[in-house]
């Protein structure tokens, strides 16, 4: 047989897995020449599980990239049991990625939603685009370690400002006066943010999540409805959407 070149299927190698917080891990993966931009994701094969698990990339370096993941069910349990040097089969890069523009940007993350936002922030820094990163967590045990975040909120006040990250957005917008907002987090948080920014007419991009099977737009499993009446796939048309195009229900 002739040698095949699969552009989007890769066998990486675990460089290291480190605990980031309660139920939260960083996994650094070696994958030669693998390239990906902020907001895009990879889909990881987890043992015998039927569906690959999608994860945003949080950081990329020469020949390695890092994911921040939260243990939830079988798939993330599998990944959390990987050891250094274990092989890891992943596909990607998938999705559209954030539109990076030379605009003063407010970055908002809730929980593990920090992952793609943090990668975006790095890219903004490289390009000297002014930005501020605010992130909310349940409590201090949920804050991934070693991150450089401008403002942290915790629901229980055990670290940083007390309350949900949503609560301080209005204030931050007034203080920082961003031209653009990027956000990632639970659906309810994104909905809330979009309602605010739509009113304030600030351009907003959000990273969406939905169960996926194919990651490339063919199975139509990850479809969401847009305001224009069309369906969009989170995997291919997204995961990054404009804040004002999504139909929330």
């Amino acid at each position, binding site marked *: *047989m*002739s*040698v*095949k070149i*699969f*552009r*989007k*299927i890769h066998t990486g190698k675990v460089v290291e897995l480190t605990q980031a917080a309660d139920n939260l891990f960083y996994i650094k993966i070696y994958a030669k020449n693998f390239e990906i931009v902020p907001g895009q994701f990879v889909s990881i*094969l987890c043992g*015998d*599980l*039927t*569906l*690959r698990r999608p994860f945003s990339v949080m950081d990329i370096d020469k020949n390695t990239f890092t994911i921040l993941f939260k243990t939830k069910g079988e798939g993330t349990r599998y990944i959390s049991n990987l050891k250094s040097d274990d092989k890891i089969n992943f*596909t990607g890069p998938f999705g559209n990625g954030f539109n990076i523009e030379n605009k003063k940007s407010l970055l908002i993350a809730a929980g593990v939603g920090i992952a793609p936002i943090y990668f975006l922030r790095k890219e903004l820094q490289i390009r000297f685009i002014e930005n501020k990163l605010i992130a909310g967590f349940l409590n201090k045990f949920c804050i991934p370690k070693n991150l450089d975040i401008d403002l942290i909120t915790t629901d229980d006040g055990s670290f940083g400002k007390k309350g949900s990250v949503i609560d301080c957005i209005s204030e931050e917008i007034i203080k920082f006066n961003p031209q653009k907002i990027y956000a990632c987090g639970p659906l309810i948080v994104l909905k809330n943010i979009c309602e605010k920014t739509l009113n304030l007419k600030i351009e907003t991009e959000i990273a969406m999540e939905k*169960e*996926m*099977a*194919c990651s*490339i*737009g*063919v*199975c*139509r*499993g*990850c*479809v969401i*409805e847009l305001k224009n009446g069309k*369906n969009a796939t989170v995997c291919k048309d997204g995961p990054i959407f404009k804040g004002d195009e999504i139909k929330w229900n």
Partner: protein
Amino acid sequence: MELDAKSNLKTKLNRLELNTPIIAASGTFGYANEFDDFINIKNTGAIVTKAITLQPRRGNIGKRIMETTSGMINSIGLENMGIQEFLSKIVPILHNEKINFIVNIAGSTTEEYLQLAQICEENNIPAIELNLSCPNVKTGCIEFGTKKSSLYELVRETRKIFSGVLITKLTPNVTSIGEIAQAAQNAGADIISAINTVRAMGIKLNFSEGKFNFTKINGGLSGKAIKPIALKAISQIKEVTEIPIIGMGGISNFNDFIEFIAIGADAVQIGTANFTIPTICEDIADELSKFIKTNGFKSFEELKAKIREDFNNG
């Protein structure tokens, strides 16, 4: 890169010519070249395009897929662009890229199926697969493929209209799939394909703050979990029909492929496994090709004869 010509995986099922006996199943492979990133699509036997209806369809809202133990449930609801856009936008790509394809069609009434068949005929579509797992809105939403009389009717009328290769895809959700398969054969189908997904329901639950939160999905089960059900269905079909069979249901590796050939399939389709291992159609073809060469067979046809012989004697 194309498969080594010497490997000789070419297969003929009635008038349907395939480069390899491994076909990509409808709904799991897109419409044309979407898997280009993973494999050389020409190395599949053919691709079966996602179900096409007369009019474009939005599909179901809400949760559309759920993983279950060794399988998945889907409830896509036939979202598709409709036959007209398919003909104008997709078919040219398929022709240009020389992709061998089979068009999976679906309707809510007999008339819709017939109109689709007519359009396919007029547009020289080489092969169609009748997706009979769709509810017939005229008979209280009973699936077309579950009543042998109405299935017979539908296939016979389609046969009159469509001169290309006519594949009838059966649902496993019936008391006797053999009877249904016979009806399809008698009505003039060239090939039977089976199985479509198994009727199923998935629930995820989560208890918090004194309240149960349930996510549920009603749909079709596919993947490894259904392989034993598919094998049984195909052996039942084989028992009572003579036309070629395309087997599917949970195939995810080379051994699975051989099992389906052994019980009577002449080619297979791979669905869910494309999601797990997007190179799987080509991987199995590669392994098959190597196996044929390593073990001194001349062709897949010869290997198939040997598999059947050993199976029937064992």
